[in-house]
């Protein structure tokens, strides 16, 4: 199979125009010994065979349509309305490139402007960019931006140990070539009060996550004052769904807000593509990484949209750019925009409420089990909570799979002080029946 329209007659005519005898002549600059290698690839498949092959492969998976899913830890099984996929997959959106020519990209540009606006409303922040790769890269670039905002003089990034472990790992990957240090998370007992005491004149930012990795809402009130008094920035990573119900970070003084936007209209997709949400207060807009869409007028005074403040970016600023990012996750951001518009003012609150109540129901049912299970989480939480289990989580999860249930995340993997603890996620997708079955199954496998 190929998708080339050229016929042999076309090729002959084109070669003649070019003035060469054969296509191989066009590759004369390739060193001869490396030219035309044999590629050892499987034989090509027809479309029919391809679909059969993919069906065979995917049949080996357990998926959240056929299993009840209680796994979260940074990726969530929220409901995706049909309208999202149907609109997002219009060819004019998904087969376009980055909107470099604004007159023929107003669809993408306006949709991004609306995305930026809705995310700004959700987070109560001034400015939102046109997206990053995912939550991890967003928070890493937020910390980098905080260092740049301090004109490179502040080199310490304080991060809470209750920020998702993978996010902290990605931060460290990002900074390995620089003189920026990531600290504060060495002791899992470091809470926000402890972190506050670690603020100093070298601190570029304090980065936290709320609800944190364990699902708990962090006590962020008055935190911003302490961070700002030390001359640092407050970086807050949120669950966007939680903001349907809980105080947005812009209202408690966050300077940069990041989030994983996967669950806003996007499937689990085995980890990607996801959506990095990135917001900041207006003061720092010139230090922001990533693309921004702005409103302007055309030569006749009509409203239109363009990519703007591009001098921050790599194609102009090269080594002095705020980041190297160019391609982001525009189509996933479009999906998130359609999702937010479909949910609307009431729907976004309703999803948060359903998730909250169902998670609390599940937590209380498990806490009642007694046979080795108990609820570890003792602070207000949103849709995830931690339970102590009577035996290793991997063992329990294996037994749950036999009952068509995908269990929660094994915290012992990353936190040695949390052996046999499971992080359980519950969303509006989990029916009462699913929750009751889950609780009953836990009881059985104890």
């Amino acid at each position, binding site marked *: *199979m190929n*998708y080339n329209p*050229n016929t042999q007659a*076309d*090729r002959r005519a084109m070669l003649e*125009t070019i003035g060469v005898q054969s296509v191989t002549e*066009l*590759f004369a600059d390739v*060193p001869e010994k490396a030219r035309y290698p044999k*590629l050892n690839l*499987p034989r*090509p*498949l027809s479309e029919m065979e*391809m679909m059969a092959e993919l*069906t065979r*492969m*995917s049949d080996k998976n357990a998926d959240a349509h056929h299993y009840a899913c209680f796994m979260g830890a940074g990726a969530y099984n929220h409901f995706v309305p049909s309208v999202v996929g149907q609109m997002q997959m219009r060819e*004019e959106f*998904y087969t*376009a490139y980055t909107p470099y020519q604004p*007159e*023929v990209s*107003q669809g*993408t540009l306006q949709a991004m402007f*609306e995305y930026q606006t809705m995310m700004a409303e959700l987070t109560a922040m001034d400015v*939102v960019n046109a997206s990053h*790769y995912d939550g991890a890269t967003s928070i890493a670039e937020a910390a980098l931006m905080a260092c740049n905002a301090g004109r490179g003089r502040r080199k310490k990034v304080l991060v809470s140990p209750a920020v998702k472990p*993978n996010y902290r790992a*990605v931060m*460290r990957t990002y900074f390995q*070539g620089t*003189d920026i240090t990531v600290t504060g998370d060495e002791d899992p007992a470091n809470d926000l009060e402890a972190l506050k005491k670690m603020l100093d004149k070298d601190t570029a930012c304090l980065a936290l996550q709320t609800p944190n990795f364990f699902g708990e809402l962090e006590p962020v009130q008055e935190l911003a004052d302490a961070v700002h008094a030390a001359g640092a920035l407050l970086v807050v990573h949120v669950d966007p769904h939680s*903001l349907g*119900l*809980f105080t947005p970070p812009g209202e408690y003084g966050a300077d940069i807000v990041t989030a994983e936007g996967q669950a806003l209209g996007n*499937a*689990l*997709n*085995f*980890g*990607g593509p996801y959506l990095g949400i990135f917001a900041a207060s207006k003061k720092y807009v010139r230090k922001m990484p990533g693309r921004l869409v702005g409103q*302007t007028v055309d030569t006749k005074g009509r409203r239109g949209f*363009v990519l*703007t*403040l591009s001098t921050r970016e*790599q*194609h102009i600023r090269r080594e002095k750019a705020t980041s*190297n*990012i*160019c391609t982001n*996750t525009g*189509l*996933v951001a479009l999906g998130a925009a359609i999702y937010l*518009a*479909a949910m*609307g003012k009431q*729907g976004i609150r309703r*999803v948060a409420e*359903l998730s909250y*109540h169902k998670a609390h129901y599940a937590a209380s049912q498990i806490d009642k089990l007694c046979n080795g299970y108990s609820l570890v989480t003792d602070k207000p939480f949103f849709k995830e909570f931690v339970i102590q289990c009577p035996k290793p989580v991997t063992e329990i999860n294996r037994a749950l799979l036999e009952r068509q249930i995908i269990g929660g995340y094994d915290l012992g993997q990353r936190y040695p002080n949390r052996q046999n603890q499971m992080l359980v996620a519950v969303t509006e997708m989990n029916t009462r029946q699913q929750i009751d079955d889950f609780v009953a199954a836990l009881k059985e496998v104890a």
Partner: protein
Amino acid sequence: MYESLLFEISSPGRTACSLPDLDVPEAELPSEFLRQEAVNLPEISELDLVRHYVRLSQKNYSVDSVFYPLGSCTMKYNPKVNEVAAAMPKFTATHPLQPEETVQGNLQLMYELQEAIKEIAGFADVSLQPAAGAHGEFAGVLIMRAYHLSRGDTQRNNMLIPDSAHGTNPASCAMSGFSVQQIPSDERGNIDLDALRAACNETTVGLMLTNPNTLGLFEENIEEIAKIVHDAGGLIYGDGANLNAMMGVARPGDLGIDVMHFNLHKTFSTPHGGGGPGSGPVGVVEKLRPFQPGPIVAKDGDSYTLKMPEQSIGAVKSFWGNFGVLLRAYTYIRMLGEDGLRLATEDAVLNANYLRVKVGKTCPVKYDRVCMHEFVSMGDIAEGIHTMDIAKRLIDYGFHPPTVYFPLIVHEALMIEPTETESKETLDAFADVLEKIAEEARENPELLHSAPHTTEVSRLDEVVAARKPVLRYKA
């Protein structure tokens, strides 16, 4: 007439959302954490929402609607089977943290894609984790750094970058803590070998090489370049943006390149999505294998498992890679096979050369020799006419403009990449239109200066946008 914003068609009480009733008892809400005012999102019926997005989509030019010869972006056709594959629910509804035994299908697909890219590009190992080209490039530069450090070679902090390179190259180096030294091009568009020799020393991290380069030219001295850099103890980074000119014709790994990213959203037919998501896997030669970002899928008997390379630079993103994009690329590679991939490259290069000869008559080609998948013309074809004028006038004729004003080393650059999926008729029509525009440029230049005329908005004021940024709607 212009389209209203979502917020302007909102009316209190409308919604496009359908959610079930609560089937468990209500729990108490923690009052001190509650949001005081509902999120100010629009309230819209489903039909109004659909019309809004359908109309918005119609304002875009896209590969599925018009010829889109955007240089360096490889705007080839995105096969529909890819989209059907990527939407299969048993793929899309899998959680990245599920036990490995429940996602063997996903892991097998990733493993086979790793193997295929290794084979196509001639590398010992591929990590699928990076999310886009620039992201893979950043990972690649960190791999180079980790390699030098592992050998106690701590003084290497200077990266060599040709003056024709993408801006991401220097930006990725800055993020990795390296300084950047620019290497000029010679009169044939190759890297200036004397300048390269003079720049190489014990502080050299390596050379970031785009081959074919952004002029669309294959480096004529690739072997010599590799030798100079390697002799100085440096490594060669390959920018994979232009791999579409190489499939089945040359393997970067055979040409002396040590580490390289691939743009699955260019070469391997996954859609660009109006700015992503992309996918930027990294390939490396054997000696760089331990430093790969991860995890990477390994095969263990009949089962597949995720493994972190032992001296890994670390994870560069959440989870394992842009799986949805990987799935599309895998489908493409499996359906084309060796012969199909080679033919894609051959036709891409044939189409580009055909267009180079035809377009060159109207818009001179700066380095007019056999090109690979793209070429760079110049747009200042008449008094007072600039590349931007030609670009905007092409819109009126139903073509997306080529890349403009890049690479920076060509004055009034017009960078044209037709790809293999365009027909001779389309290429002829494009060349004819350019000829017609050239005529207009001489006879009625105002027609170009005021273009485009057929779009819902005319040229937009970027100065106003940047001076007083309006980045969100406010009622």
